[in-house]
């Protein structure tokens, strides 16, 4: 089963402490070595982003930053795991590092299962 982890927090809280960066790098290295994390990435600030929206039959394009959003997605990872519980365990470890190394930081990681081929059988 494949899962996407979306890490959300408020923007403009400054750069994460070096200890956190080091600890996260170590965790990511471990997940890489375990063959479970198949991709990951960090996202540029919303100041550099653009939204294209359809609403009431109209297309609108809005450039960031999106100051009204309390929390935005700042990074993601894709894992291949046996169960939702494994995804939860991996995510808990990731968030523990934030708790430990970045006092006062608030945010969340959302675990979403990615549909696989088995969820979309080919059409007859």
């Amino acid at each position, binding site marked *: 089963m494949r899962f996407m982890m979306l890490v959300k927090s408020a923007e403009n809280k400054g750069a994460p402490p070096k200890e956190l960066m080091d600890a996260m790098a170590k965790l990511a290295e471990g997940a*890489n*070595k*375990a*063959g*479970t994390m*198949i*991709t990951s990435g960090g996202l540029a600030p919303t100041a550099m982003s653009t939204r294209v929206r359809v609403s009431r039959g109209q297309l609108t394009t809005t450039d960031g930053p999106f100051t009204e959003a309390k929390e935005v997605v700042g990074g993601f990872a*894709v894992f*291949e795991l*046996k*169960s*939702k*519980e*494994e995804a*939860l*365990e*991996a995510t808990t470890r990731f968030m*523990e590092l934030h708790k430990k190394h970045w006092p006062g930081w608030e945010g969340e990681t959302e675990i979403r299962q990615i549909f*696989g*081929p*088995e969820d*979309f*059988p*080919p*059409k*007859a």
Partner: protein
Amino acid sequence: MTATHPHSAIDAVWRIESARIIAGLTRIVRDVGLAEELAQDALVAALQQWPDSGMPDNPGAWLMATAKHRAIDMFRRNKRLERKHEELGRELQAQQEMAVPDFDAALDDDIGDDLLRLVFISCHPVLSTEARVALTLRLLGGLTTEEIARAFLVPEPTVAQRIVRAKRTLAEARVPFEVPRGPDLATRLSSVLEVIYLIFNEGYSATAGEDWMRPALCEDALRLGRILAELVPNDPEVHGFVALMEIQASRSGARIGPSGEPILLLDQDRARWDQLLIHRGLAALQHAEELGGAHGPYALQAAIAACHARARAAAETDWHRIAALYDALGQLMPSPIVELNRAVAFAMAFGPAAGLELIDTLASEPSLKAYHLLPSVRGDFLFKLGRFAEAQAEFERAASLTRNARERELLLDRARACAGGPPQPGLQ
């Protein structure tokens, strides 16, 4: 409030941690069977305690510490026994070995080497292939005996017995817990790749049963391959091997039709290929090339798979390159199966007559006598050459030889299509 059932959470921790724990313990107790028992004891303790006490902050460390304490208890018991024996005037055996080792120092060392040692011991040539597969899935993949049995469609007690016997064999043969050196390393490494590839292939093209694929086994094998590539980072063939599995696995979603029937590579909807895995596979292949060339048998097969992965449509496939790669593979690893594939590549690159010429040299090959793909491929060449009656006979023979129910249906379909004569234009 816990979001999930505590037992499932413990299972998850076990799956993540067990290989490392068993590897670390094996180095200390020098017996992989005993190490696994100690680790299992720790798991049982977790199942008893965690639902009440809650999951510890670092569950992996908890399991390791618990197993470690059990090991120390055991050593002390043995020492006491030993002292009694001494008092009784019995011969004291290997006091040095029975001394309590320095657990903390041993456990703090780099775990990577232990994991690699565990890989090598699980795939040790003293074991039968079946035992290697079972032990690898159990110790490194963290699968239960029941899961292994289900994956290989054999009764659970059979797998359990295989594992017990394998551990006993390792202990009796006093197989050292080490990474082989020198010329041994290459041979032993290829034995490891063979075991993992066997697991992958059992998942990718199930040799028996109703299902054409068992994807979970592919994922297990892929994970083991990725772990190995991290443990042996400078071996091009290991990266080529991982590349091969990544690219093959990328087609999983396209290989099965709506009623579970297999869809052959060239007929697959390439939009269903997993681009993430293709990307990983091509990167691994490139890595192998950078490490001094992708000349090994797995790397060559990965290069062939990469030709398919790069072609956006079947018609864009670089068959000339594939034919050349099969030439190289045939030189390196001469085998009737490679010849058969080379014939297919030649047929695609230079026409069915060229393929037929190659395949006819295999007609008397004893190892292919019962191999369904030989008549199946030959039938395909004959069909393309318009020799429908001969093609039909070959497809029927192929159908009678395969053990896979889905594949049999596909072959019988092709046989029936031959009876209808040449295909109508526009209906293909």
